[in-house]
């Protein structure tokens, strides 16, 4: 079948993207597969100025998942654009920049800078990073704040599509989704990590220096599917499914509940060529399961 998916003005060869923060700046994965084979590439969250991130330790393994509190360490938008982006196959494969800021105006400035780069196909706004103490969590947990950021980014993004990435750490994610849609978002991506924590009973210390971190990986897939399902029923803009995807079957599950495309996150750490393998495996699985077009399969859950 035709694997192509289109949304928000983007056309992807297949629905498999990589999730922000789990695929570096893309270049790290060139040894493991041909980046052009991916549907799209979402790079590590970028801020206006470089950020040092949180103190160590920053990661901890949990049952079928992991916690991270990287704290948005990144080289800054300019360094990315000048030093990394040129190496990426952006003219063939959409490269999506993930935006992180601590204030609506800052989000706007960042959006303006990134949107004017020919190599950046779309913007994904991280309003939900649970790792940073400077207020990032608030945008994603309050519909009005989320709408404000969305508007700020939209205003400065020119013709570039704006995706807003939602956090599951809210009472009503559909409510957040509607607010962001109404504020002009072209697409939604969800979910970001679940707020979680791990401790060492022996040393009596938290396993993350930041104490609280973001839970990701297969463990959270049921929560992610539920969020995507709820949001797809609440909004009319395209939804990108994220959370625990580790197999081609997982990809289909997210499309079945309504996602237009997906992002592979933590599973990139299961093995660095995993996203490429899923791209390879997906057509055969579709054939085996009688999926013959995305348009008929998407959201076709018999519920």
């Amino acid at each position, binding site marked *: 079948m035709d694997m192509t998916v289109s949304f928000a003005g983007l056309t992807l060869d297949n629905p498999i993207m990589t999730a922000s923060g789990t695929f570096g700046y893309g270049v790290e994965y060139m040894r*493991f597969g041909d980046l052009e084979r991916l549907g799209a590439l979402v790079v590590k969250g970028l801020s206006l100025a470089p950020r040092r991130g949180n103190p160590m330790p920053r990661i901890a393994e949990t049952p079928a998942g992991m916690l991270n509190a*990287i704290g948005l360490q990144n080289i800054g938008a300019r360094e990315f654009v000048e030093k990394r982006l040129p190496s990426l196959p952006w003219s063939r494969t959409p490269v999506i920049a993930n935006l992180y800021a601590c204030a609506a105006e800052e989000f706007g400035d960042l959006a303006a800078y990134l949107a004017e780069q020919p190599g950046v196909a779309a913007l994904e706004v991280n309003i939900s990073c649970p790792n940073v103490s400077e207020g990032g969590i608030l945008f994603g947990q309050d519909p009005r704040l989320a709408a404000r950021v969305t508007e700020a980014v939209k205003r400065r993004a020119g013709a570039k599509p704006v995706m807003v990435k939602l956090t599951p750490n809210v009472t009503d994610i559909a409510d957040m989704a509607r607010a962001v849609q109404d504020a002009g978002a072209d697409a939604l991506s969800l979910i970001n990590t679940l707020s979680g924590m791990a401790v060492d009973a022996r040393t009596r210390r938290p396993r993350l220096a930041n104490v609280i971190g973001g839970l990701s990986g297969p463990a959270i897939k049921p929560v992610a599917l539920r969020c995507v399902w709820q949001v797809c029923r609440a909004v009319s803009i395209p939804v990108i499914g994220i959370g625990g995807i*580790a197999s081609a079957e997982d990809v289909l599950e997210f499309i079945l509940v309504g996602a237009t495309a997906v992002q592979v996150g933590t599973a990139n750490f*299961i*093995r660095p*060529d995993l996203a490429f393998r899923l791209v390879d495996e997906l057509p055969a699985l579709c054939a085996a399961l009688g999926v013959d077009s995305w348009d008929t399969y998407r959201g076709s859950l018999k519920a």
Partner: protein
Amino acid sequence: MFANACQDVTVRRLTRLGAGGAQGDFFELALDFPGAGDTAWARWRPGQFVMIRPESFGLDPLMGRPFSIARADEEHGVCVCFQVVGRGTAKLAALEPGDRVAMWGPLGNAFAARPGAPTLLLAGGIGIAPFLEYVKRHSSAADLRLVFGHRPPLDCYPFAEMAALAACEAHRETCPEDLHAFIALLGEVIPQYCPDGLILACGPLPFLRTVGRLAGEAGGRAQLSLENRMACGIGACLGCVTEHKEHGPLSVCARGPVFWSDEITL
């Protein structure tokens, strides 16, 4: 053809080192050598590591595990020596010939090698692993000395093989006094290689700190191989960083695992 640096390889051999049990469980694991054509593997250097993830991990534990490459060639396969310390290494210890393992590497930088320069290798426990090949390649060095501190019996480590090739001495710690004596020994030996010799160390963090401090006090520096907990192993997740005095947090997997002691804050 595109050479994917992540490969599915099969287990050739798993050999127990030492007697096991209360002394600790140590193994040498030999995996298929991923193709002679793969130039990255033809060029690997001691100090580099591999990420290993057996199929038997399923979805839990999630992440691969990093191990120093002890040796790697067509004849032996890719070999790592490991100690069972948790559930990942416990699952490695249950591997059998023919089992499938995802392996990506060789990863990271490597220890410096300065033929002709007096070279001191300092190993703590299973941190001896990367020095196996180092000694083999550099045993002709005018002055290559390995000082090895360990608690479990010596036969838990690939020590004998190395002792045959270079000046290797092992010091077992069985009580706190032994540790003090070992640190005192380090305090004597390290200055002999400062500032002109090459000092390379691999082992537990407190050991590395001591080495770095002693070298600094003697006006020199050492290369330390760090064992930060890793997720991706390739510089993508930024989960394994160490504080570099000039560049800020650097990923140990991609910019290390070997760093100069005077350039980082441990």
